[in-house]
């Protein structure tokens, strides 16, 4: 993998221009969103509930179409470009761990034997190669989320969308998964858009934080976290981390203040 170029020198992956989403004619979920996602970015969408961050993800994933504006993928988009992780692990309870991870390939008509190596490699990346024959109910919440992540990255997509994936987990598990997610990203070099309402999580993970406000949902400001990767536990207690948290926190307060 080639080293990631610094912010500002990355090739664009997709561009959202003047994207708006209105529900039932008058409820504005998202107003005039402009965002360029570059190859290698780790972008967090940070904001209070109702700020349209999940709507933005659904628009990018194609589950919704914008009311106006457009989303353009550089060089077009194919089905292989996307991996998605939801707030819930969203595994098929009747299928073993391997079969859950195989799903994206299976839906393309690719047999298990053809992609066995990739499936096992993905499980290895999330540290669950020993649990491939287990059923989801036999796993803890954190482990289920790892399976979900393995499934999202098994096809090596160009972009992974994560919708508050760790919100339902306890703090300790969440920190561990944050560290592992960054290690994964270093290993496979994907682009991530990560929805969260935690300032600390967004600063630890991302190099770009897009702060959003509610009613109507819109982008308020972008905060750049210039601290270099790889980031480890020491980063959580560093002065740089604290400074970035303050900056993001203030931006978020502005967002809430504007909304109220």
């Amino acid at each position: 993998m080639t080293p990631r170029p610094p912010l500002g020198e990355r090739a664009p992956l997709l561009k959202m221009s003047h994207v708006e989403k209105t529900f039932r004619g008058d409820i504005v979920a998202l107003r005039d969103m402009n965002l360029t996602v570059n190859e290698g970015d780790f972008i967090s969408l940070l904001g209070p509930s109702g700020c349209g961050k999940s709507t933005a993800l659904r628009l990018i994933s194609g589950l919704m179409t914008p009311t106006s504006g457009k989303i353009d993928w550089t060089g077009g988009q194919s089905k292989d470009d996307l991996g998605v992780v939801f707030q819930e692990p969203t595994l098929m309870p009747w299928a073993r761990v391997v079969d859950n991870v195989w799903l994206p390939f299976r839906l393309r008509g690719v047999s298990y034997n053809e992609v066995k190596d990739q499936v096992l490699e993905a499980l290895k990346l999330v540290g669950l190669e020993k649990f491939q024959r287990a059923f989801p109910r036999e796993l803890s919440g954190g482990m289920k989320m790892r399976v979900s992540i393995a499934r999202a990255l098994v096809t090596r997509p160009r972009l992974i969308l994560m919708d508050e994936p760790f919100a339902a987990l306890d703090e300790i598990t969440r920190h561990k998964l944050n560290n592992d997610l960054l290690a994964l990203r270093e290993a496979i070099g994907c682009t991530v858009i990560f929805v969260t309402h935690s300032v600390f999580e967004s600063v630890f993970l991302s190099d770009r934080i897009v702060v959003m406000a509610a009613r109507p949902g819109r982008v308020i400001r972008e905060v750049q976290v210039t601290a270099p990767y790889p980031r480890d536990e020491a980063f959580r207690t560093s002065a740089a981390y604290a400074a970035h948290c303050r900056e993001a926190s203030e931006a978020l307060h502005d967002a809430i203040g504007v909304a109220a």
Partner: protein
Amino acid sequence: MSIAETSQISETETVDQEELARYRRERMMKIARWTLPSLVMILTLLAWHLYVTIWEVPHYVLPGPTLVAQKMVEDWAVLWPAMILTGRLTILALILAVLGGVGLAVAFTQSKWAEMSFFPYAVILQVTPVVAIAPLIQIYVDNAFVAALLCAWIVAFFPILSNTTIGLKSADHNLSDLFTIYGATRWQRLRYLAAPSALPFFLGGLKIAGGLALIGAVVAEFVIGRAGTGLGLASTLLEASYRFNFGRLYAALILISVMGVVIFALMSLISYLALFRWHESALKREK
């Protein structure tokens, strides 16, 4: 010696005693699960026997358990083929109910138009008592076995249809979104998402339908009669009542109940085998 130490010791002792008590309770429960119903049965049979002998109840009013047992053995040559016939009718009706119920459920969930057009008629077919329809079926369907099968099918298919329809619609929304993102075809969505989601619901319907198929078969035999269907358990029972052969009547009745219990046990076993690995309903939890 500190207070903490003392409390620790007594705590472990309590835990041990609690464990022991729990273990004892569990064993008692295990034994009681079989012995209590058996005891009830023995006492009932005894009371029945004493009532019949002490008050000298005539056998055409209430036959004693010994007479019933005797008839069961004596008439086995009549009862066994009758049971086979009723069993065949029931199983066939159940199989057709599964095919019809699941088929219609898939059609209903795949096409809103089909559901809107035909679901009300499925309900009407279900709520109209089969006893009321059976004579008509007998008139219009020449083959009496087919007529009886149709009666049993009408009673049995609805719980499968209704449960499977709900099941097919109950797939997790996020999983459904995921299938959309990965560009799943209609068939893939049905095969890999809707069908497994519907399985627990379908199996719940199957348990009900198994019992209903037997009831449907018995009703059909009653209404359509031996002339057409041949001598099943229900027609044997009816005939025995006409001849005041109450020993045989009771023997037939017991066999019908046994069939019902066997069918229920079979359906429960199928359900368990299909679900025990993954579904909440089949999980045993430590208490």
